[in-house]
């Protein structure tokens, strides 16, 4: 198994873990982290698959991932701002009607 494939499979594992976490968790910060795990897993799959046997990785996939990372950072920061505001306004850390733990 090539290292690139190993990275891709690890990324797939992160993706699935993040997806499960996103479905299960209710705390907004945890959900955001799970969502980021999904994103990071996807990036790892792309970067892993872009590794080529001759040593030169595919620059197109790398550029796509770099673009994705920057957007993901901005989206995460915006989500944090929104959560902060939500918490300030309602005092809650989750969206549904259940009481906080």
């Amino acid at each position, binding site marked *: 198994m*090539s290292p*690139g*494939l190993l990275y*891709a*499979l690890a990324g*797939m*594992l992160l*993706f*699935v*873990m993040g*997806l*499960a976490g996103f*479905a*299960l968790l209710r705390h907004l910060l945890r959900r955001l982290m799970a969502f980021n795990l999904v994103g990071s897993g996807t990036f790892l*799959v792309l970067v*892993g*698959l872009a590794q*080529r046997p001759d040593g*030169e*990785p*595919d*620059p*197109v996939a*790398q*550029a*796509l991932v*770099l*673009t994705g*990372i*920057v*957007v993901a*950072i*901005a*989206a995460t*920061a*915006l989500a*944090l*701002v*929104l959560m*902060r*505001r939500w918490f*300030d*306004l309602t005092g809650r850390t989750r969206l549904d009607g259940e009481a906080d733990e």
Partner: protein
Amino acid sequence: MKAGVVTVLALLLGGILAPVVVAVASADPGTSLHTLVQTRLEASGVEHPVTAVLLNFRAYDTLLEIGVLVVAGITGMSLSRAGARAEPELRSTNTLLHALARWFVPLMLLLAAWLLWAGSHRPGGAFQAGAVLAAAGVMMRLTGLPTAWIAPGPMLRLGLSAGFSVFLLVAAVGALTGRAFLAYPPLLSGPLILVIETLLTLSIGMILLGLYVAAAQRDGADE
């Protein structure tokens, strides 16, 4: 109960995805984008393939990306009602930290400039440099160095939008003068990419720092 169902579904998905990943990894793509980029690298105006893809071959992605960033930045900053006011309780009063920050901030600015320049021929570029810029700004803010330039005002607006507007302008000029949208004049592509990247660095740094400032603000603390 719910946790069990989700776990089983996730494992099932993983079981389906793993062979797909293996199959994709072993598939022969036929025409390789990698060689395509290598053969056209001369014409891109830069020597590093990733930068060539980001700022030339797939400049569309980067243009839209900085657009998304500007929208995210503006949204985030308009949500924080207090404006970019320094929060004294977040600051550290450690003298060692202050002394170190005074050394680190110029070094980080230098590093950002180097990363920006390095992008033309080795790993580096606008995003890495912008991230370092934002980190320098966070450090200045946490140690209480003056960060008045992040306060809402014309300078902030200019800084936020400079990267996107200049990129869009270059793209539109390309379309208006008979080339394609986002096609650079062949001889000018190197200098144009450098100008765009410099402004992108500035804008990305400001947007990330602005979002950091907006997220750290406490709503109840505004006057």
